[in-house]
């Protein structure tokens, strides 16, 4: 009798009659097969986008940032919008793997691997924007506090822009460590199963020689727990610091104390939407519907409706505070947002982020896969507009009416944005081909508690009276010694 008991109220996390071996088969065999035609088409298309992005960036570097639509009034356009958008998307992975680990949310096991990968790729994309926005990118290392012959002249440690450098590089490093340390045992599984020499060699290197001894697992688990504890404040700090880029300035529309929580909620909102976009496709193509179940998608849709509502409250609070402050600059900024020349971006944001996620209060819609997919894209369009609204519509009408300007992106900016999609999906396609997209070892860990077939086996116990249960446990206890009960 298995004594890990989970209530029937909870949906199984793994559907179907799975054994440990079947879990390995289901998740690893797509890696061992040749990818399907869809994969090649998608991968090729991503490479084209990436190539166009590289061309656009090269063009911008060669001719300078004059090729962009930014001007002296609107200094940050699509570029920083895209930066904040990608970094926001990059928040879901660590939230799932760290915060949900601390909260002991079993459902994270099905989605954490893909979400963490998505985080890493999204942060890679985000990092491109501030780097290439420097213009003279060959001087980019000046943001690092390196000893130099200019004094040595150090960067400004009191500036949120420098905090960003530290926050994002730390976030990327820690996410990568978290993700890769989880991959090591799964790589060892691929290695031990490998039939070809090349696969054995490569996964042998990638698995670091992991064999899964009891002591190794103990240390690995300790590491995962502490990394989760460290990543939890880290993930909150990153978007807080990104919001400081705006909030510490004195520009109406930016200079608000609500920004850190509002940005973090927005980041989680868009991140979960992107996870849904990717997983709806991934589970279908790799036939992982039994591991990434509708229950998983529903759980994420619940987080989307929660964070979407937080974001909505933040938008309304901003409007209220603008009026309550009775500062004409503040009031004008928000009036122009709603009714000025950029009204369409404000209303796109409001519709996509505040109104449409409310449909997820309906359970039927939360569990509807095509609807989830469409909504996940709508949310990310909305979140893109949010950043555009914050960045462009706070700056285009500044303190001097004579310098008011209108900003439209030029093709290199659009190409750069498309290029990051290329980078993101190129990485994701490679990941889906060469790495287990579901954490095999973690699924096996929850299988006997939350697997469908094992839960069905529990029905007998569920129907027992308290006395009967006591009796069974007691006999079992005497037969097999104390350890079993203790664990």
């Amino acid at each position, binding site marked *: 009798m*298995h004594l890990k008991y989970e209530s029937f109220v909870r949906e199984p996390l793994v559907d179907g009659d799975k*054994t*440990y*071996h079947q879990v*390995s088969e289901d998740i690893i065999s797509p890696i061992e097969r040749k990818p399907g035609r869809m994969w090649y088409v998608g991968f090729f298309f991503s490479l084209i986008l990436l190539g166009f992005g590289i061309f656009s960036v090269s063009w911008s570097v060669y001719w300078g940032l004059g090729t962009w639509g930014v001007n002296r009034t609107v200094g940050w356009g699509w570029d920083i919008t895209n930066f904040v958008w990608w970094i926001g998307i990059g928040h879901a992975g660590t939230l799932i793997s760290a915060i949900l680990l601390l909260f002991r949310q079993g459902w994270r096991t099905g989605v954490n691997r893909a979400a963490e990968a998505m985080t890493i790729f999204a942060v890679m994309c985000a990092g491109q924007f501030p780097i290439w926005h420097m213009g003279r990118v060959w001087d980019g290392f000046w943001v690092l506090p390196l000893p130099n012959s200019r*004094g*040595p002249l150090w960067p*400004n*440690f*009191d500036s*949120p822009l420098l905090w960003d450098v*530290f926050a994002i590089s*730390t976030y990327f*490093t*820690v996410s990568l*460590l978290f993700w890769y*340390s989880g991959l090591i*045992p799964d790589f*060892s*599984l691929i*290695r*031990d*199963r490998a039939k070809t*020499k*090349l696969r054995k*060699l490569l996964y*042998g290197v990638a698995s*670091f*020689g*992991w*064999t*899964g*001894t*009891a*002591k*190794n*697992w*103990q*240390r*690995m*688990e*300790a*590491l995962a727990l*502490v*990394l989760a504890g*460290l*990543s939890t*404040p880290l993930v909150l*700090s990153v978007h807080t*610091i990104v919001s400081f880029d705006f909030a510490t300035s004195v520009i109406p529309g930016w200079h608000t104390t609500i920004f850190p929580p509002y940005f973090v909620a927005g980041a989680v909102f868009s991140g979960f939407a992107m996870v849904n976009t990717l997983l709806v496709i991934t589970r279908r193509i790799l036939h992982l519907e039994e591991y990434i179940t509708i229950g998983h998608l529903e759980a994420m849709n619940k987080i989307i409706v929660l964070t979407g509502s937080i974001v909505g409250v933040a938008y309304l609070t901003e409007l209220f505070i603008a009026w309550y402050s009775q500062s004409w600059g503040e009031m004008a900024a928000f009036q122009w947002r709603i009714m000025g020349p950029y009204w369409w971006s404000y209303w796109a944001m409001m519709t996509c982020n505040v109104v449409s996620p409310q449909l997820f209060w309906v359970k039927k819609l939360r569990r509807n896969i095509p609807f989830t997919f469409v909504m996940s894209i709508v949310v990310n369009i909305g979140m893109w507009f949010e950043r555009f609204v914050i960045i462009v519509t706070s700056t285009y009408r500044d303190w001097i009416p004579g310098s008011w300007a209108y900003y439209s992106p030029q093709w290199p900016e659009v190409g750069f944005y498309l290029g990051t999609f290329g980078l993101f999906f190129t990485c994701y396609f490679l990941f889906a081909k060469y790495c287990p997209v579901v954490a095999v*070892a*973690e699924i*096996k*860990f929850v299988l006997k508690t939350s697997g469908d077939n094992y839960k069905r086996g529990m029905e007998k116990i569920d129907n027992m009276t308290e006395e009967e249960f006591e009796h069974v446990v007691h006999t079992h206890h005497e037969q*097999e*010694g104390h*350890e*079993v009960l*203790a*664990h």
Partner: protein
Amino acid sequence: MAIKKFAVAAYDDEEVLFPAVKKVRRSGYKIHDVYTPFAVHGLDEALGYKSTDLHIAGFIYGLCGTCTAVGFISWIYTSDWPINYGGKPHFALPAWIPITFELTVLFAAVGMTMTMCYLNQIMPGVKKHVFHPRQSDDLFVMAVELNNHTSEQAALEFLKSTGAKETYIQTAESGWWYGRWDKKEPYEALNAG
């Protein structure tokens, strides 16, 4: 680092493994190690291992990060190159909290991961003996170290009696070495046939 002889027992259920570990330990056999496809909670205690102190190392690394950030920035801003920003204090601690926090996390995470790799003896290029090809898949594999005085037959029979699905004798390198996973090691010829 030595080539030794092991009696190997493969179990297909962690609930059989726990009592088996207990029986094997009680009977005086020396368990070399137990290999599992996922983290089996409590196995470390059943084997008599102490809990790991890795988190203490992590705390110390984190502290190093904190000190590095505060020390470095305060040295720059108060003595190496003090800059007057509109009369604000040179020692502006609140403004340094974000970077201090990030470096604390960075040092703790990188340090702990590297320490974990060092203690677990894992690194790209490291090779270790795999007693059963399915130990990373669905079997829980116990390797019992034999010496010249142990009867192989008795050991195998005993392991079988603890509920093992498969038992066999295998010669193996007990430590780790640098090697390629696609190449057979010379000692593995001893296990042929």
